[in-house]
């Protein structure tokens, strides 16, 4: 059993109160599956997660993409630079 680590950014960092959260991954699983697991573990984040983009490194990842374990997934809430 490997793990997936979520990184919280922006306002999500405030909501979560911690900078990251690890979950066990049972393959096969998609990004959507592990986001559902995260929402179940941290229900106060569930509404915000819907509006988050997800990135691994410098690549945006779609909900339907499969995960293999060991990934770090950055959760990116709505942005407001400038």
């Amino acid at each position, binding site marked *: 059993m490997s793990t997936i680590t979520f990184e919280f950014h922006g306002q999500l960092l405030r909501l979560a109160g911690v900078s990251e959260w690890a979950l066990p991954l049972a393959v096969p699983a998609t990004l959507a599956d592990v986001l559902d697991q995260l929402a179940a573990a941290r229900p106060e984040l569930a509404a915000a997660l819907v509006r988050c983009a997800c990135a691994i490194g410098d690549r945006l990842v779609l909900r339907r993409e499969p995960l293999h374990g060991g990934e770090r997934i950055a959760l990116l809430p709505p942005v407001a*630079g400038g």
Partner: protein
Amino acid sequence: MTNPTDPARIQDRPLQLEPLLAWGLHPQCGGLALFAGTVRDHHDGKQVLRLTYTAYAPLAEKQIRDIEQAVAAKHGVPYLRVLHRVGGLAIGEVAIYCVARAPHRAEAFAACEEAVDRVKHEVPIWKEEFYADGTSAFVEGCCIRPDLDGATPAQPHHHEEQRHARRRA
């Protein structure tokens, strides 16, 4: 900054304008457009004391470079750079610089405006405002999730606030 012509686009120190202007290069360019975004002392009727910008740098760096390239190509602009500051900023400090150099002013202005708009709306950067009444709030902008049902990312562009009403300790 190891390479002055290819600086980090996300920087945690005061942004340096002079190297960004690329004087002495691009002799075919007769127009330079510059935008500087500075920290305002108010938002929605509230007095703002300071800001904190944070970014997800791995993607932000790549996206700013992609935006520069796409906007420069669209407008036929030989040189386009956007730098964004992160960390704690005081009122009046520069949060963003955009420089466009082009043969003529029309395309320099157009590229500068479009690049700034796209960086504000598409790049993973967040702004937390700290108010005189002791509260703080994230300025909530644009959802950048590429696969959200029934929604087009980067729209709409009006910025609401998400209040957390945190008290300063």
